[in-house]
């Protein structure tokens, strides 16, 4: 696992981010299951953290991102405040969307995270469009546009990729392939050679990466991000990973073999792998453990802050709808 010229700092940063994402989601899961404080569905990305961490490390803070229903990790990696995110999951004041969006619509425009999306695939054209806007405005930001393997069977995949290629837009499309579309194996519903082949047919350069190898994701992201930024043209990354849990936190995933899942987790957990890489590079276990406990403490504090926050002022139901013809509360 040890690499020549291994960049320990980057390796630690990747692990730190992955630990923070996992701790955030485990904490959110607790808040949902144990505390019954998260009322809407949440979709956890446990097992997929290397994609978020590796990808976002290659971005500038002012670069932009759009994501999916399974977007906590991306959002946190992009720089959002976990307390504001946790408040959002609990529907509280101070949530990053004021408690109006919840997990599936998590967004933090302040760090360039333009929103998760409750409609599979819809963000693909939206991200292309954000890049279109950047092109028109004439600056050098790029957009990273993340979606799942299931999203490649909807029209916006075709329309968004074609759009970005035709107009020469600075967008990096990332298919975060966790093998599953809710309770259906994506492979059973997908013809041909999958995401990369489709992107290539639309003229995009494509890379495939082991999405559970944070270092590999970081490497390929660095090169693709540079390529997109310099060429002002889209590129495509297919990151293979695995959804360790159910589709939502209340899905027991009984449609797949628990033994297989356990074996996959045991052999191919991205955090375990990154810890091993750092261990091989000479980082002490205690230091690695401390990263984890720090992350857990941070997220426990985020949850406490969220619990302590009040619900939004009830008139918020009627704000930020529209300027012209805004609604009034019911008669």
């Amino acid at each position, binding site marked *: 696992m040890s690499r020549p010229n291994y960049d320990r700092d980057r390796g630690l940063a990747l692990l730190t981010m992955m630990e923070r994402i996992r701790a955030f989601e485990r904490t959110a899961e607790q808040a949902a299951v144990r505390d019954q404080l998260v009322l*809407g569905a949440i979709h956890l990305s446990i097992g997929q953290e290397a994609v978020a961490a590796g990808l976002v490390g290659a971005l500038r803070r002012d670069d932009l991102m759009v994501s999916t229903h399974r977007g906590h990790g991306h959002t946190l990696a992009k720089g959002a405040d976990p307390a504001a995110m946790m408040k959002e999951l609990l529907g509280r004041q101070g949530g990053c969307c004021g408690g*109006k*969006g919840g997990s599936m*619509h998590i967004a933090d425009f302040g760090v360039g995270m333009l929103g998760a*999306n409750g409609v599979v695939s819809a963000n693909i054209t939206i991200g292309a469009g954000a890049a279109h806007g950047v092109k028109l405005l004439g600056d050098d930001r790029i957009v990273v546009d993340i979606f799942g393997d299931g999203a490649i069977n*909807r029209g916006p995949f075709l329309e968004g990729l074609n759009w970005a290629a035709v107009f020469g837009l600075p967008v990096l499309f990332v298919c975060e392939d966790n093998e599953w579309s809710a309770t259906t194996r994506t492979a059973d519903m997908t013809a041909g050679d999958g995401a990369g082949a489709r992107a290539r047919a639309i003229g995009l350069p494509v890379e495939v990466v082991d999405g559970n190898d944070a270092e590999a994701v970081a490497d390929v992201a660095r090169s693709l991000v540079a390529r997109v930024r310099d060429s002002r043209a889209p590129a495509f990354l297919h990151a293979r990973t695995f959804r360790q849990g159910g589709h939502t936190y209340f899905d027991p995933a009984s449609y797949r073999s628990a033994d297989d899942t356990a074996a996959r987790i045991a052999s191919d957990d991205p955090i375990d792998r990154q810890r091993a890489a750092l261990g091989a590079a000479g980082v002490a276990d205690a230091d690695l453990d401390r990263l984890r406990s720090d992350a857990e403490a941070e997220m426990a504090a985020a949850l406490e802050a969220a619990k302590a926050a009040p619900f939004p002022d009830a008139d918020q*139901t009627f704000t930020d709808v529209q300027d012209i013809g805004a609604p009034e*509360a019911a008669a």
Partner: protein
Amino acid sequence: MSRMTYAEAARTALAEAMRADPRVWCVGEDLGRGGVFGQYKGLREEFGPDRVSDAPISEAGIMGAAFGAAMVGTRPVVEMRFADFALCATDELVNQVAKARFMFGGQSRAPMVIRKPMGMWRSSAAQHSQSLESWYAHIPGLVVAVPSTPQDNYTMMHAALAADDPVVYMEHKNIWALEGDVDVGEPYDWGTARRRHAGDDLTLVCWSDTANVAERAAATLAAEGIGADVLDLRTLWPWDRDGVLDSVARTGRLLVAHESVGAGGFGGEVVATVCQHAFDALRAPPRRLAAPRSLIPYAPNLEDRLRVTEDMIVAAAREMCA
């Protein structure tokens, strides 16, 4: 008479129809696992994967393909998962399915049951909670069903499966587990309301889960001596114009309640029709209770501001009858 949940009632009807007619089949995401709300549980096992078919995440594909399959003589049940996602298949539904028979001069039919689970379901936020039944009522070619009880979800599912028209079939997500008695022999005529409570003081028109709310409100009102004639429309197209007009002729008062947005909603159609055709019978201004024209928020206390509650219905009825 058997006891069933709302979800079981539709599933039972569907299974019966599939046994009786090999042309009936279902298609949608995750149906093999029983559907996202368990509405298809066990059907894969009985009817196999061709007739209880999974689908790619591909709403336009599902609707378009089901339509093509309907035109050649099969009878698809199209599962859209959440009514919100059906918006990804709007061209297919509105420009194709609804129009084919007419624009091809009667050469084709699209016998389809298009299931679109609707409505607010705790903290599902703006993209998983919508009620757009009023849209479909505005589209020629479509039948619009909004059942509210296990009995109706059984009877109307059978009727929808037997129909040669495309039926937009909107179950309310909040009442999958609602239990009730089901008489499998109960007759049904399209476009007839169900009287959920009888009364002579005010006509209370409602549909979908709001009919359950209205029935409870009517009980409270009855205890105060106000007789509400609660008409659960059950379908928005066709809708029971005559039933509503008859009731208003008797009560002289009309209150319409629905969960969906009031502005431009079907409640306006009901009020307008009554005012046009039973103007002289009205003894008080008609009223509507519906959601304000805002989006559906995540936080529970914000979401509650959009709901039409039992209390609101009771209060409005009291005022109207004062």
